[in-house]
């Protein structure tokens, strides 16, 4: 970089002060463009995290209001640690994130993207549009449709039109197969996000690579494995990381579908239930904030793991060809 800039300038010696000013000037441009994003992250992530952490050290609840609360140190974290449900709910959370992510948000998204980019363009567009329908349906209506699909006979669509004619004993399928429905409802929506990203990434791979692979005699699987997947590593990292963090904190559809019953309570829903929605009131904001803080820490750890696994540093380093 230095060699390049020296090359285009005069050969006059540069004083250390001038060099420093140049560096500052060089940084001003990127800083200006980064400022809005930085402020957003600061105000909508770092400051809320600090506030949540602060609240987690108090006994703040509806019954204390904002005036009668007290600092309780790490008491809320101790209660999480000794809570017999903590391990169970944590495992539930991992199960929910892992299954939804692998089966739908990344897995199904990739399959749809691959399939719809290997069929006629209009047909591919049509199928991708179909997959967007769950995302654009209001969440309450979307979940209500699933509930009526799963309801016990004589109301449930599955029972009436599929299982009863097949001789399968009807039941209320939602409690009976709660996890299946939790993953399906989330997955049908989650898949469309990755589908769009992967489709655009696959379509932007230069045709030369595909033609070269065909000339070399690659079959379909080899083209996917050795050409497409390595070339969409960056979108894969982004979707995997983003969707993991998103799933870790999302509970909207579980809340509407099961409200955490039938063993489907996940960590974020637990925090919501304790902090904002217990049946007879007295919301435990301090305890709920401690649960949320644990989730932030887990999210940070997972983001770091992903970045190391996908070799994030290599992906973001400056292109070598321009540095010559």
């Amino acid at each position, binding site marked *: 970089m230095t060699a390049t800039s020296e090359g285009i300038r005069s050969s006059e010696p540069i004083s250390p002060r001038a060099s420093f000013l140049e560096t500052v*000037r060089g940084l*001003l*441009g990127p800083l*200006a*463009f980064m*400022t*809005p994003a930085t*402020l*957003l992250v600061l*105000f909508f992530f770092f400051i809320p995290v600090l506030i949540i952490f602060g609240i987690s050290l108090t006994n703040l*609840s*509806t*019954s*204390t*209001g*904002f*005036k*009668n609360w007290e600092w309780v140190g790490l008491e809320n974290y101790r*209660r999480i640690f*000794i*809570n*017999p*449900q903590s391990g169970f709910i944590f495992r539930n959370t991992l199960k929910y994130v892992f299954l939804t992510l692998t089966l739908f948000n990344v897995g199904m998204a990739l399959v749809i993207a691959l399939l719809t980019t290997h069929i006629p363009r209009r047909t591919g567009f049509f199928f991708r549009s179909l997959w967007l329908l769950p995302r654009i349906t209001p969440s309450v209506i979307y979940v209500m449709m699933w*509930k*009526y699909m799963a*309801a*016990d006979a004589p*109301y449930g669509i599955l029972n009436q039109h599929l299982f009863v004619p097949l001789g399968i004993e009807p*039941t*209320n*399928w*939602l*409690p*009976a197969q709660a996890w299946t429905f939790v993953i399906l409802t989330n997955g049908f929506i989650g898949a469309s996000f990755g589908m769009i990203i992967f489709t655009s990434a696959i379509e932007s791979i230069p045709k030369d690579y595909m033609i070269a692979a065909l000339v070399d005699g690659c079959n379909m699987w080899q083209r996917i494995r050795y050409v497409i997947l390595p070339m969409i590593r960056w979108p894969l990292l982004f979707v995997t990381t983003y969707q993991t963090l998103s799933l870790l904190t999302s509970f909207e559809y579980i809340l509407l579908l*099961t*409200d*955490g*019953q*039938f*063993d489907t*309570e996940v960590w974020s829903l637990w925090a919501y*239930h*304790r902090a*904002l*929605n*217990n*049946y*007879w*009131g*007295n*919301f*435990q904001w301090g*305890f709920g904030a401690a649960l949320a803080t644990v989730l932030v820490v887990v999210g940070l750890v997972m983001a770091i793991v992903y970045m190391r696994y996908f070799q994030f540093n290599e992906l973001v380093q400056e292109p070598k060809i321009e540095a010559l």
Partner: protein
Amino acid sequence: MQVSKRFLLLAVLIVAALVLTACPAQQPAAPAPAPAEEKGEAAAPAAEEAAGPVEIVVWAEANNVEHWRADGPAKAAEMVEDFDINVTPVNDDAGWGDYKKKFTLAADAGEAPDIVLSGHEDIPVWANAGYIEEFGWCREKYPEFDDVIDSLWDSVTWKGKIWGVPQDTEARPMFFNKKLLAEMGWSQEEIDALPEKIKAGEFTLDDMIATAKEGIDKGVVEPGFGYWHRPRKGGDYIQYYAAYGGRLYDPEQDKLIVTKDALEKWYAFQRRVVEEGITPENYIGTEWSIWHDTVTSGKVLFWNGGIWQWADWATNYVADQGGEEYLFSFVGYALQPTGIPGRPGITLSHPLVYMITTEEASGKSNQEAACALLAKTTTPEINTLHAVDSTHLGILKSQATYPDYANNRFLSDVLYMLDYNFYQPNHVMYGPYFDIVWDFMVKAENGEMDPAAAAEAAVQQLQAELGDAVIVE
């Protein structure tokens, strides 16, 4: 020159970014609630200046047949003599959780309504937080409050003081299908005597299970339709715990109680009704609309509900078949049977109460006017409108002879249940307590956990989350 242009552009971008991010701060802010001392001084001159009616906002959680909860005070305003009052009634049908959340956030922001209607169990929580006024001074001021049934004042008492006035109460009976019992071979006398037998502890939960099973075996009742309890979370379930001798609260120590033995029997009952085939597998979570449809269609032999559902069924489910008359033709009602032979049946009452918010919570000093308004709301003329329309029990002694109320057959029939009722405790941690016992009950009924193991886990969870606020016995 080029460099300075670039600097100019950068400077403009930075300023624009800062202005954009700072925009909300520059919006005209809503006036913050003034400190208590200031409000006291400022409110009086403001009221004098305005010299108009006192604006009172009343919030209530209510469906279409319960609208008198907020509309009652609006109508009562015409009868208030001490103040010129204009009432803004707000009937909210968003569900109790969201409603309570809305109130607490509004109260913390100093924007609470002047009068809020909610369950009596909110009293310790909201009183502790400083959202509601102690009500004793108001009760003393107006003779209308002397008409309130004495025992109902217990439900609004916390730490020896009164914090609100009851608006309605109810019973949660066990309903039974008279036609199906007759088809099973029960005589009319036997059917008519069932409520008395339950009241005397001669027909228990075990008998109910046996009868429902018999109905299925005889082919009169379809499998899974012998007994339907409430399909979703709610206080009704605590009736089973109480039916097996469970205790909830020790007022002397102001601590919650969990009776381990009763908890285990309750959970075992919930599982047993499924295993015996009288309640469907995977039943909890059934949609309310499906539940109402099914019980009013005459397919279910026994079911637990609330008396307020009677009006809902008559208006919204069987209106085309004759409404209330159709219900009377096949639905019977009794107390919730006991789990211990010989003990009388019981029912849970959950009075809803009007509470006056503090000056700090509402940002207004309308407490005197709110009190006068509640006095005129606590009259047979106003309260009976709600009681009859929504089939809730009245709260006044005089309603027993008030024609509109006394002539209502259903309300008169179930009035005796108040002699066998109990309340949930007024304790700040009852909300989390209930959530925990409910969560493990669902696991027990669905067969995810053995009832004994579920009871053990519930107790551990209660101790972990509630600490010394709960006593295990």
